[in-house]
């Protein structure tokens, strides 16, 4: 039901003459991105400068971030600013809708901003150009250095108003940054805004790091690193930079994730070639064993209500996806197709499970319902894996590696995203090669 906000263009008319009323059934439409005009925000001439914020250009900068966010969804078509005929301040007061209709805009975003007394005051409006009316108007006051986040929050509000779905622009992505030749990769934890800006490196690259995951408040990250040459699950506080090893297990721990309430970490613990799923309560430090099987059980991920866990296991011979209750009871296999299934991850909406599938030497990213029905493969490639959901359950981010020569030449690892409809596959901009992405929840909730 979610894609209906595309433009419905009337064709296929069926006339049913019943009584005196003529009825027309519109049963099909054109799926085109919505043409939207994002006017630069008007900068109040009384604005002061603030540190290194480019006050005069801020209106342009914010509107281009909003535009870039919209273009990246594949659902909107931001129109070329050269065609705009109304000045930003006048359009913000009362747009001349007929002028905006002339350039085929169906929605219009206007706004203004003022920097005074070290505060950024910003307001914006979204207009329905076809209906000549305002759809939403909001104002914020914040510190001027927050201007980039304000642009993302504005994008989220407009996206929500036009699509009926929660936005995902005011978010961050954590990933493993990779540099150096293939045989001597330096891997660091890196974090960036979802649009690729503001990259920060959280570890130095002395130790290998893998599979970082956010907790629900986006403050803590759990990941795998090495401690005394053993892979161990770590916890890192992003603000303070404090790291610790999770639990006191007599062997290697890996594949960590937080529970949806953030109170527990779920992970695999391997001993004597057998790996099972465990949880650890972060407050009481109590460790609980969830699976007890002679096979390799790993990659656990909770359902958003915390009642179920999906994981992959080779207990049937080949690696497949299973679900169970969060206490480990009621284990049920849900994947039955050809090939191997791994890295299951439950959608934040609760309806779908995303996975990596390997079949015939190709790697696929796909989704299925949590009962295993409705399997859909979204993208096929030489090597790709590790899907992670956008917080609204609409997109997946994953990483893809290219084939390299004998000496590792030509090798790249990059982040990609795809819509769950299978459309709008695109590469995410990162400063270095990148793998193992994990999408945060919305920063402003």
């Amino acid at each position, binding site marked *: *039901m979610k894609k209906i906000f595309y433009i419905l263009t009337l064709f296929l008319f069926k006339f049913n003459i019943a009584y005196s009323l*003529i009825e027309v059934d519109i049963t099909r439409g054109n*799926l085109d991105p919505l043409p939207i005009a994002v006017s630069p925000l008007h900068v109040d001439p009384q604005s002061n400068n603030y540190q290194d914020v480019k006050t005069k250009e801020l209106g342009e900068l914010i509107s281009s971030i909003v535009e870039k966010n919209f273009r990246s969804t594949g659902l909107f078509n931001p129109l070329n600013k050269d065609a705009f005929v109304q000045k930003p301040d006048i359009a913000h007061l009362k747009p001349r809708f007929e002028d905006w209709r002339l350039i085929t805009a169906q929605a219009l975003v206007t706004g203004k901003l003022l920097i005074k007394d070290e505060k950024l005051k910003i307001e914006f409006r979204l207009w329905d150009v*076809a209906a000549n009316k305002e759809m939403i108007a909001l104002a914020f006051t914040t510190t001027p250095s927050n201007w980039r986040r304000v642009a993302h929050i504005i994008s989220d509000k407009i996206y929500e108003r036009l699509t009926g779905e929660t936005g995902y622009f005011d978010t961050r992505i954590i990933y493993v940054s990779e540099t150096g030749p293939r045989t001597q990769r330096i891997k660091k934890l890196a974090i960036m805004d979802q649009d690729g800006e503001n990259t920060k490196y959280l570890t130095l690259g002395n130790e290998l790091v893998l599979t970082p995951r956010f907790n629900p408040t986006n403050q803590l990250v759990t990941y795998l690193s090495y401690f005394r040459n053993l892979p161990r699950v770590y916890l890192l506080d992003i603000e303070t930079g404090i790291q610790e090893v999770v639990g006191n297990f007599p062997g290697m721990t890996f594949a960590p994730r937080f529970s949806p309430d953030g109170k527990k970490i779920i992970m695999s613990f391997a001993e004597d070639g057998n790996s099972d799923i465990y949880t650890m309560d972060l407050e009481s430090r109590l460790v609980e064993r969830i699976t007890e099987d002679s096979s390799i059980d790993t990659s656990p991920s909770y359902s958003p209500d915390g009642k179920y866990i999906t994981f992959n296991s080779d207990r049937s011979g080949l690696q497949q996806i299973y679900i169970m209750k969060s206490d480990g009871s009621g284990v049920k296999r849900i994947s039955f197709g050809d090939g191997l299934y791994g890295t299951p991850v439950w959608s934040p909406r609760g309806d779908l499970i995303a996975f990596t599938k390997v079949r015939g030497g190709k790697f696929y990213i796909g989704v299925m319902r949590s009962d295993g029905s409705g399997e859909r493969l979204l993208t096929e490639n030489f090597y790709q894996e590790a899907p992670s959901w956008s917080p609204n359950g609409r997109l997946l981010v994953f990483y893809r590696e290219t084939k390299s020569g004998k000496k590792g030449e030509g090798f790249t690892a990059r982040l990609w995203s795809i819509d769950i409809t299978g459309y709008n596959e695109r590469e995410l901009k990162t400063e270095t090669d990148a793998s193992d992405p994990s999408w945060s929840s919305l920063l402003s909730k």
Partner: protein
Amino acid sequence: MNRPGQKFYKILAESALRAVRICQPLRVPQTGYEKWKDIQLNFNPTEMLKG
């Protein structure tokens, strides 16, 4: 499928109205105004989603 009050009702209704407005002006017969002055448009995206 979507009734007033359901999550996507408003979004769908607005989208349908937008489509009608964009299609204006509609070409109509020059005679028989009384017969076609009221037209009911039923939007049903079921078929659209099959693709």
